[in-house]
């Protein structure tokens, strides 16, 4: 054999280095120029385009993952909401009008709910002329909506995760939901029989009118009526168990599009629903003819491709802008680009939740003092910087983000745990944890998210720096993070991972189910016990339990006016913070981008994405 000449070796490595450097130096794509726009949340990459909106074309969307469940009334994540936006209508929903996207507007309903009986009754009237795309086509009825509510709390594994928001507020609903026969969990026939033959005492139907009788006045209920349980659901949905192939194999639609094919984790295709009439739908213009969703992408290449204006990618389906892209997107916004968007989210994302029931280290996290010590040991400003800086983050020092009712009643500048590492150390020492006997913590995080991984890395590093704490990461993907670890139900003989000590800290995200007057969803879902536990449809992942907080919540719910309720919500906020149930970090401002040929891209907070039902294309996709 030959001997490899060393000069060739050196030359080759040199050539490689040169090529990479040349490619690298031409890779900086930031747009220089004087900032002309102030960076403020709500900057819309609307891209109105010139001339009248055009009908037609195919919108291609690429995502990294699938809906959580393909069904009518049980979806609970933003990808589910996005799909429902195109196919299944609710009593109320969000208008795609910049500046008004968070005010519920009538969708199936003809107008706002009519309150009678001192607010203890709310009546909603359904539009007539709405039709299902069944064969033969069939009118959408008020009973369909009631079916949606009843089916949403079914006992099978696929059930609506936000029932805690409103279940106790509609009279008889809790009794109805707990009245399902046990066999309904595994038998579609039994479930159908129960749903069709039993009714909720507090829901009455008369013609096109639905009247809800409430246990207490609830001016916030219209917000809840944008949720999937308040969708019209056809009776065909009961042919199989919720979330089963019998159901998602053939989804019916009363919205502008119908699903023509669905392969879980791979693709969804939508085409126009011939039974939908634009005149009956004030919220959706449905300019494009078809929508293709490809779920096999990855976050980095999606945003790379989007910048090139390729016809095969108009919008991301579910992939959020990666932190690596922030500088570039912010530069685009500063120079006035119509393709990038920065929107408020009203979320607490991520926040650090403590498992109060973890048996690790002698149940250390069950003690308030230990949790408080950890809160003192984290410097929020460092986390904010690594998560993108203050340009895209609003630091949260307590539960309710600004703009949420109740937040204004929390004293300004309320920060119960300013960074104090020596205090953290002494509190930990008092609990028996020192450098020689550290507190060992498992921190569960989503390793397929750049941002979540950065948050984990920084928190672990900060806590380790205290000396008396040792953090190990538990990486997992998005669906396992919630599905396998946090939402797995707890029952005797089958303890939830939190009880098994599989995690001590976690970095989930929380967004309210509606906006503004949404404190009830924050507290019922996150801190109510036992109503907020995963098995009961909430997201109180750490099994936080406080009689005082429960009490404050029910007091807030029984107040006659919003202003009076707000005072109690603020009190609950402070109580939760004193008990160190969670350590809030930030409300992120979401950066998003779309292709140059996508117009009228209205950013919708429930989807954290532009509204596909209202965009139009100037260059039809292929």
């Amino acid at each position, binding site marked *: *054999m*030959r001997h*490899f*000449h060393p000069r*060739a*070796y050196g030359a*080759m490595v040199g050539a*490689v280095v040169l090529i990479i450097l040349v*490619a690298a130096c*031409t890779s900086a794509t930031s747009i220089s120029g004087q900032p002309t726009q102030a960076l403020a949340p709500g900057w819309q990459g609307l891209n109105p385009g010139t001339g009248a909106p055009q009908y037609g074309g195919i919108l291609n969307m*690429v995502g990294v993952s699938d809906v959580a469940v393909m069904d009518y009334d049980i979806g609970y994540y933003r990808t589910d909401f996005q799909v429902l936006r195109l196919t299944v209508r609710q009593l109320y929903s969000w208008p795609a009008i910049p500046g008004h996207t968070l005010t519920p507007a009538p969708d199936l309903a003809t107008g706002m709910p009519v309150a009678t009986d001192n607010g203890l009754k709310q009546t909603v009237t359904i539009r007539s002329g709405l039709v299902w795309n069944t064969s033969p086509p069939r009118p959408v009825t008020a009973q369909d909506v009631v079916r949606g509510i009843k089916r949403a709390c079914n006992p099978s*594994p*696929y059930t609506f995760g936000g029932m805690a928001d409103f279940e106790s507020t509609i009279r008889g609903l809790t009794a109805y939901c707990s009245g399902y026969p*046990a066999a309904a*969990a*595994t038998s579609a026939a039994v479930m159908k029989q129960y749903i069709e033959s039993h009714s909720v005492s507090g829901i009455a139907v008369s013609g096109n009118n639905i009247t809800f009788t409430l246990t207490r006045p609830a001016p916030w209920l219209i917000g809840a009526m944008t949720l999937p349980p308040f969708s019209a659901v056809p009776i065909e949905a009961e042919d199989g168990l919720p979330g*089963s*192939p019998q159901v998602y194999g053939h989804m019916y639609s009363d919205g502008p599009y119908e699903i023509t094919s669905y392969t*879980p*984790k*791979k693709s969804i295709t939508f085409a126009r629903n011939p039974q939908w009439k634009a005149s009956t739908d004030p919220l959706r213009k449905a300019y494009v003819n078809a929508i293709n969703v*490809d779920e*096999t*992408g*990855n976050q980095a*290449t*999606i945003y*790379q*491709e989007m910048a*090139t*204006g*390729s*016809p*095969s*990618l108009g919008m991301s389906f579910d992939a959020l802008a990666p932190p690596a892209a922030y500088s570039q997107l912010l530069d685009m916004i500063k120079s006035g680009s119509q393709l990038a968007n920065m929107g408020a989210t009203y979320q607490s994302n991520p926040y650090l939740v403590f498992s109060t029931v973890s048996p690790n280290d002698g149940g250390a996290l069950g003690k308030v003092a230990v949790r408080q010590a950890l809160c003192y040991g984290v410097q929020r400003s460092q986390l904010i910087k690594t998560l993108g800086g203050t340009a895209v983050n609003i630091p949260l020092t307590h539960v309710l983000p600004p703009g949420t009712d109740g937040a204004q009643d929390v004293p300004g500048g309320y920060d119960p745990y300013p960074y104090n590492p020596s205090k953290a150390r002494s509190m930990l020492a008092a609990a028996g944890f020192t450098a020689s006997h550290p507190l060992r913590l498992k921190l569960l995080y989503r390793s397929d998210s750049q941002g979540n991984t950065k948050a984990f890395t920084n928190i672990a590093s900060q806590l380790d720096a205290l000396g008396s704490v040792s953090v190990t990461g538990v990486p997992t*993907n998005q*669906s*396992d993070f*919630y*599905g*396998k670890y946090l*939402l*797995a*139900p707890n*029952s*005797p*003989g*089958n303890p939830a991972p939190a009880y098994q000590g599989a995690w001590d800290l976690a970095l989930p995200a929380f967004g309210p189910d509606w906006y503004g007057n949404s404190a009830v969803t924050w507290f019922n879902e996150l801190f109510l016990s036992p109503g907020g536990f995963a098995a009961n449809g909430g997201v109180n992942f750490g099994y936080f339990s406080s009689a005082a907080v429960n009490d404050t919540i029910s007091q807030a719910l029984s107040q006659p006016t919003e202003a009076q309720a707000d005072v109690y919500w603020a009190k609950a906020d402070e109580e939760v913070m004193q008990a160190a149930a969670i350590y809030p970090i930030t409300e992120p401002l979401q950066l998003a981008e779309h292709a140059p040929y996508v117009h009228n891209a209205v950013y919708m907070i429930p989807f954290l994405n532009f509204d596909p039902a209202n965009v139009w294309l100037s260059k039809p996709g292929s």
Partner: protein
Amino acid sequence: MIRFLVRRLAQAIVVLWATSAVVFLLFFVGPGPNRVARTFAGRFGTAARIAQIKHDLHLDQPLYLQYSHWAWNVLHGDLGYDYYKGEPVISVIAQAASATISLVLGAAVLWISYGIFSGVVSAVKPRSLLDRGFTSAALFFYSMPAFVLGLSLIWVFAYKLSPVTTFFPFHGYVPLTASPFGWFEHLILPWLTLALVTSATYTRLARASMLDVMGEDYVRTARSKGMPERRVVMVHALRPSLTPVVTQAGLDIGTALGGVILIETVFGIPGLGWTAVQAINQQDLPVIVGIVVLAAAFVVLVNMLVDIAYAALDPRVRLH
């Protein structure tokens, strides 16, 4: 020859059986029945559901019975049921297999032809610039991880060239039946990546084999008879030198599954490797097991075929 065939077949069956046992032990026994059932149940791990799954999968029965159930099903083409997607594992695998086959075969054509070409040129003109160039390239790509290469190719061709041409897509797969042009377009970069990474061994293999053959007496005789060098190479030396190359190619195609995982992940091609990684992420055991068993069976099959082909060509092999 018949005796050899029978023996070889028997060996293949033994290996297949042993492989299935190892896979079964690894996935169904290793974690323990509770863990397996809980894994299947996932987020819907109510006690009732876990018990039901245990019953469905016969996890409450003694080990040998479990294995026989499972093996019996596999032999009947029933690789189990995918709870997540709600369809039989066989159909999940069938859909994914066509993508992987497209990827591997297309790349194989590229790497075999490039390998032979570069190997022959290097052997015919040893120590020339071409020889050094090809050898350097071989070493370079052999040492580069497939995912780095794949990402770099996307960067250069799809992103950097996008103002000039949008021919190179960023990711995805289009089935041949849906659009031959789209199929080709989406597979160019993946083919290139897989071929470059695999071709290195072929360059060296072809070169060495060619050198070997060119040193043989009959080649020297042909040369001394005055035959032009090109004819010597193409007519006398090329064919015999291809045998080890083809053998290796057969083996590599058989074991390609491991290598394509990275490529499929980077390029978003929903083939067997991508499906397997997804299944592992969701702990979708039936799919993982199905793909592993299939991959193993495929390798055993290809190995057997290669051995038989070799034996048909070279009688000495049969004695072994």
